[in-house]
């Protein structure tokens, strides 16, 4: 992994120097704030109604009615914004001609990939950290279940990392950033909606489609259930796309 830190620092510098990150983060956090505020306001209204009805009060739950829907919505926002954070990773190197430079430097392709991936994961972590102040407010107002909440956050991080890995692969495919973003967005959307097929397919293909569905695995996390199958799904997803990215980058060497 020679050269990892150097590339990592350079990547982070490039990310934070470009306005893309700030625009994405601003939009992401504004949307999060809006979702959070509206669902908390709705929860407050329902609580008011429930205070007159003890049976109903038993049914409402902060995790189910605020945290889970907000994080679900954030998943959608990530789906839209993750391609923007990954589109430049390789496409920009190729467009500006620094790819050849990278090839001649004493760093391995794997180290470059790891550094780039770690850099986009850092931005993802920063985006998610931006949502924590709201959750801290929740702590001061009520008594949320932090274990379940952290589980949901872990799920969101895993899902985001999967988005990033696919985004980096599509960025490695082309030298045009826009094309990379659209490609990864389309592919991600396909993984998102593949579960919808389940109502029209046979039982075996349903299981396959449901397994491939990227959102279905997040569902368990968001409920507060940590299941090894879901973790393994995301890890498999990430490893596969990182692997094919390396193969794709390597192919530039011998394709000339």
């Amino acid at each position, binding site marked *: 992994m020679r050269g990892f830190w150097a590339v990592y620092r350079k990547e982070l510098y490039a990310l*934070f*120097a470009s*306005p893309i*990150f*700030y*625009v994405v*983060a*601003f939009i992401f*956090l*504004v949307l*999060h*704030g*809006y979702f*959070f*505020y509206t669902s*908390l*306001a709705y929860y*407050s209204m329902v*609580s*008011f109604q*429930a*205070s007159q009805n*003890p049976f109903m*009060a*038993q049914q*409402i*739950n*902060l995790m189910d009615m605020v945290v889970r829907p907000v994080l679900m919505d954030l998943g959608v926002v990530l789906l839209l914004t993750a391609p923007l954070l990954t589109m430049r990773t390789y496409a920009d190197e190729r467009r500006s001609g620094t790819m050849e430079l990278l090839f001649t430097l004493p760093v391995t392709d794997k180290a470059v990939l790891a550094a780039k991936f770690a850099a986009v994961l850092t931005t993802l972590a920063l985006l998610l950290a931006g*949502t924590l*102040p*709201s959750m801290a*407010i929740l702590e001061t*107002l*009520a*008594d949320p*279940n932090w*274990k*379940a909440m952290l*589980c949901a956050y872990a799920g969101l991080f895993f899902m985001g990392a999967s988005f990033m890995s696919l985004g980096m692969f599509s960025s490695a495919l082309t030298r045009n950033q826009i094309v990379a973003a659209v490609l990864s967005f389309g592919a991600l959307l396909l993984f998102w909606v593949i579960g919808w097929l389940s109502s029209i397919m046979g*039982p075996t293909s349903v299981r396959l489609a449901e*397994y491939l569905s990227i959102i279905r695995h997040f569902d*368990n996390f968001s*409920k*507060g*259930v*940590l*299941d*090894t*199958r879901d973790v*393994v*799904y995301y890890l*498999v997803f990430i490893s*596969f796309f990182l*692997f*094919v990215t390396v*193969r794709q980058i*390597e*192919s530039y060497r*011998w394709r*000339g």
Partner: protein
Amino acid sequence: MPKILKSRRLHYGSSAVFSTVVFFAILVLVALIAERHPLRADFTETGAFSLSEQSRKVVASIEEPITIKAFFASGAPEASRAKDLLETYRYYNKNLHYEFIDPDREPQLARQYEIRDYGVLVVEGLGRKETVLRADEEALTNALFKLSRQEDKTVYFLTGHGERSFDDMTKAGYSSARSALVKENMQIKSLNLMQQTEVPQDAAVVIVAGPQKPLFPEEVATLETYLLRGGKLVFFLDPEKDGGVRSFLQKYGIVLGDDMIIDKLSRVFGGSYLMPVVTQYGSHKITQGFNVATFYSEARSVTPVDDPPDGVTLVTLASTSENAWAETDLDRLYRGEAIFEQDKDKPGPVSLGVLAAVDTKKVASEQPSVSQGSNGAQDADAEAQDVEKTDAKPALGYLVVFGDSDFVDNTHFGVSGNSDLFLNMVHFLAEEETLISIEPRMQKAQTLMLTAPQARMVFWTSVVGVPMVVVLVGFGVYRVRRSQR
């Protein structure tokens, strides 16, 4: 392209494709292994996505494939809740499979499984099937338990006094009731106490359906012995035919009325005055969540006494509306001139179905002579043993009395909720001692009412504050970079 370059590309290309395929295969293998051996941690406060200890035991004991067909309208929120539940069960045992079926899209399947409502699960396997009406842990675990238990419960019908016969296919017969019970994995047998000295040990329920002639005192005593050893007795007694068990029932706090129930409301449904409609059910597991009307043709009142004997708990299972009354002057009734007489007739709501839960330990110790008197020393021994057994676990005997026997005959079995009530009743009685009860998980109420300043704080922090920090940092970076140029 030079030949050498071409062969180089072919070489690298094929090795890249090959390594990708191998890597993909490894990943698939990993995923498959992970699917086979899942582990999960449930961080919810109530453990909503884990099974209770009892359920886990039942589920773990299943060794053959079991299919659960869930009949839900597609996209219904209940369906996703049921899916969570079924997925939880599947996590504990891979032999369980489930599929969701929309009864509107596949009406032929719904008809095949006799699905009349959304939200019904059919559990199939081991050559049997169980229908689950509520998709919750208790119901599903019990269904799996019943399925995995090999022996069938036996329901006995008393014969010898002109009772309704389960072989009788005519209008007054009980053959519909029998086929419904057989479908629920029960065995049906007849019982003649004039030839047998005691109720067979395998009896889950004994039903005495509309005896025309009174039972002999010895028979009543045998039935009582059965009751006191934790047996389940059901009496369907038509007006004017008390089957000679009046005083026996009286002893357990159930009073048979010498009357016939007249219900004006019934005419609204197209029946006659003499077919009372029951829409009020007592709070008991048999009638839990039951909200359909049941109809009884020519019924007498059956009422619980106000002050039940020690060790007996009485529950009114079914009673008519306020508009009905129990007419005592039957001659007048037959002349067609029945009217409600304030001081003679019993005003509505008239109860016509009563359940008595008899604490056998308490009652048997109070009246030890009951069983010995009629059946000799052998029974006394059995009784003593039973009392010993019940020391460990208080066994309850159940006595259910309805003031009508034709509400489940072939004519009325399919009417409204009659069959459901009957099946619920037999089910409850037959399964009582083996039924697994699981407390529903109560989550603590978590209300949060925002005051206006709090709401403002949430708004300013999450919608404005945090995004503004990002804008400021971005602007700062922009300024620094400009100054560096």
